[in-house]
């Protein structure tokens, strides 16, 4: 009896081993690209990317793109997989997150060969299809790790018809901006919409004011100063005073301090406020709430007299691909060259209503102004001056809580700067 059982077990084991061997043989010769995406199933970008994958697999029957729709927390999952040596070949996120999570930790593969590869059916070198400065934006030395396909930038959104109705023109300078706010307020319309529960939306004001007053790189410089002394320079205080000016004049819509996203932006889209300072994703997020005569327009953050940063300077917030360490570089580069074809990137514009990084694709109508700002810019800076990637914990635990207090009127400009000085010094002393 015992012998019989052991014989059956042996036969079963042999069958399992044989089956396993058969399956590896059937898959051998077929390359698999493991792709973890930041999009969720059903999102417009997911649909566009799925179409690219289907077309690529049809054109390359020996390649399978094994895609998983992971959502925005994809970098945490990539980290865990990287630790167990099981990272995907390809993933995507915003440039700041990719830089902070992978590039700075030397966990990304350079994709330098891709730059000179020809884009299929177009015969154009890969690097030549991008809007100037966009592809090398996250370059580290000679190495290119990050391949952007979507451009986001921030500025003031407004409804052109509403501005006409109130006889107001988009302001170019800070003084004009304040006047425009006063006009709306005097006529009973809340000038500025703000979803106060999102701290990084609140931070747009102070960050942009510092950019305009002192130029790019100055926020990062102050954050990285271990003594905290840099915050003592007058420009930082002036920027804080200008935020306080908006608060003191009650330009923000009632209830903004507790406004839970997306309450304020949907109220703006339905005409309950005049302007909102946020990223270029706003038009696609609010399209279903806006009336038929709503004409999406945008203007860049106003310049400030005597400021070092002009309006010709644009913010670049890029979404793109990266190949984590150990990826099959050849397969990934081949796929990315295929994906950047004009006919597929058109989906980013038409279906996702975003700005493509390809220079030969116009923006959706609602974002035409944003694209103009980016294309005509003389120089670029990262979103929030690159603070998210450079000093993420300082950004999250020092700056954002203090900035919330400033924009909620719980702290005056001088106190804000004093606290920044003190807390920055404390932060670095604990490192």
């Amino acid at each position, binding site marked *: 009896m015992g012998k019989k059982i052991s014989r059956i077990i042996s036969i079963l084991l042999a069958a399992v081993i044989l089956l396993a061997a058969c399956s590896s043989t059937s898959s051998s010769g077929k390359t698999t690209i493991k792709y973890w995406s930041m999009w969720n199933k059903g999102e417009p970008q997911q649909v566009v990317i799925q179409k690219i994958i289907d077309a690529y697999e049809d054109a390359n029957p020996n390649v399978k793109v094994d895609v998983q729709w992971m959502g925005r927390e994809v970098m945490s999952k990539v980290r865990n997989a*990287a*630790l167990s040596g099981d990272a995907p070949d390809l993933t995507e996120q915003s440039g700041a997150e990719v830089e902070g999570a992978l590039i700075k*930790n030397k966990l990304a593969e350079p994709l330098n060969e891709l730059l000179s590869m020809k884009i299929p059916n177009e015969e154009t070198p890969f690097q030549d299809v991008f809007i100037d400065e966009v592809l090398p934006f996250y370059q580290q030395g000679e190495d290119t790790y990050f391949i952007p396909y979507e451009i986001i930038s921030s500025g003031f959104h407004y409804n052109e018809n509403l501005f006409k109705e109130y006889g107001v023109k988009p302001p170019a300078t800070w003084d004009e901006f304040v006047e425009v706010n006063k006009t709306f307020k005097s006529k009973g319309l809340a000038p500025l919409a703000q979803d106060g529960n999102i701290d990084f939306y609140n931070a747009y004001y102070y960050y942009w004011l510092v950019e305009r007053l002192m130029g790019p790189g100055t926020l990062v410089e102050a954050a990285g100063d271990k003594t905290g002394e840099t915050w003592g320079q007058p420009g930082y205080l002036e920027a804080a005073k200008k935020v306080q000016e908006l608060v003191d004049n009650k330009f923000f819509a009632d209830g903004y301090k507790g406004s839970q996203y997306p309450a304020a932006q949907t109220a703006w889209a339905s005409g309950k406020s005049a302007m909102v300072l946020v990223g270029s994703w706003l038009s696609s997020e609010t399209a279903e709430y806006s009336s038929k005569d709503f004409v999406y327009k945008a203007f860049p953050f106003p310049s400030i007299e005597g400021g070092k940063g002009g309006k010709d300077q644009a913010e670049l917030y890029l979404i793109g691909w990266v190949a984590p360490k150990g990826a099959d570089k050849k397969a990934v580069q081949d796929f990315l060259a295929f994906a950047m074809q004009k006919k597929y990137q058109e989906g980013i514009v038409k279906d996702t209503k975003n700005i493509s990084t390809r220079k030969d694709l116009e923006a959706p109508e609602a974002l035409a102004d944003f694209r103009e700002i980016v294309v005509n810019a003389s120089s670029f800076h990262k979103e929030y001056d690159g603070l998210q990637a450079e000093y993420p*914990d300082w950004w999250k635990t020092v700056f954002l809580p203090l900035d919330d207090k400033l924009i909620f009127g719980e702290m005056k400009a001088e106190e804000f700067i004093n606290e920044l000085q003190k807390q920055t010094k404390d932060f670095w002393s604990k490192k």
Partner: protein
Amino acid sequence: MRTGRKKLTIPYLLPAVSLYLIFFVGPAIYGLWISFHEWSGFTDDMKFVGLKNYGKILVDPIYWQSFLNMMLILFVGGIFVFLIGFLFTALMSQGVAAKKAIRAIIFFPQIIAPIALAVVWNYLYRFDIGFFNSILTSIGVNPINWTGPNNIMMSAIISIIWYSAGFYAIILLAGVDKIPNTIFEAARVEGASTFKIFTNITLPLIWDVMSIAIILWGINAIRLFDFLFAFGGAEPPTRMWNTAMYQFILGFGQRTPIYQLGYSSAIAVTMVMVVLLFVVTGRKLFKREVYEL
């Protein structure tokens, strides 16, 4: 025979004990080990820093703010959860009609996902078109900024009390069910008031159930995460972080690539200590002779 049984004990225990060791004790010890390091969790490069992470906790204002929020949920939330629970218990032990229906109704919030509840409560609290402010404005009272910086934590606690009270009331009521009705009837015949019946009969006889319910609340309140995280919206503001949220955000970054797994683990260890302290103190405080029925 006894030796035979002894021989069998180890093989019978082994599967359960090994699973417990591998999936609970092992990771916990590893977490403790990580807390003595500086580590992003991305590379093998773990730097041993001894007790530095624990020293950092002592002077970290965000940690203490999150700790305060955790304590607010634990104690302020706890007081109201059990007050409501006792209220139900007192009423039900008075022989209220439709007992089962009331029980089902008060238990309803527990069958809904906390994230869905958080979204609903956010709508109720909305400043412009929220339920509460609509009522206030309809009676001529100025609207309240429920989710504003000064109120958001209290608003969250009110919601937590609302969805938790039913669960703990049900536990307490299960204890009340053990008490024979004759005891209540005898007390009523003797002329005892509802309050007297509750304090002199119900409470002593459900003491063991109550102590377990309170300890369970403590553990759940300390590690509360999902509801609060969703209630905070797309990017929960720092002022409403509890320690569990702070630990998560430091370790896993969310939208900001922080990734301080070492420091995050140290915070997790402090949470375990708080849970242990609460459980041990609770058990000592509630230790009392159990009345046999």
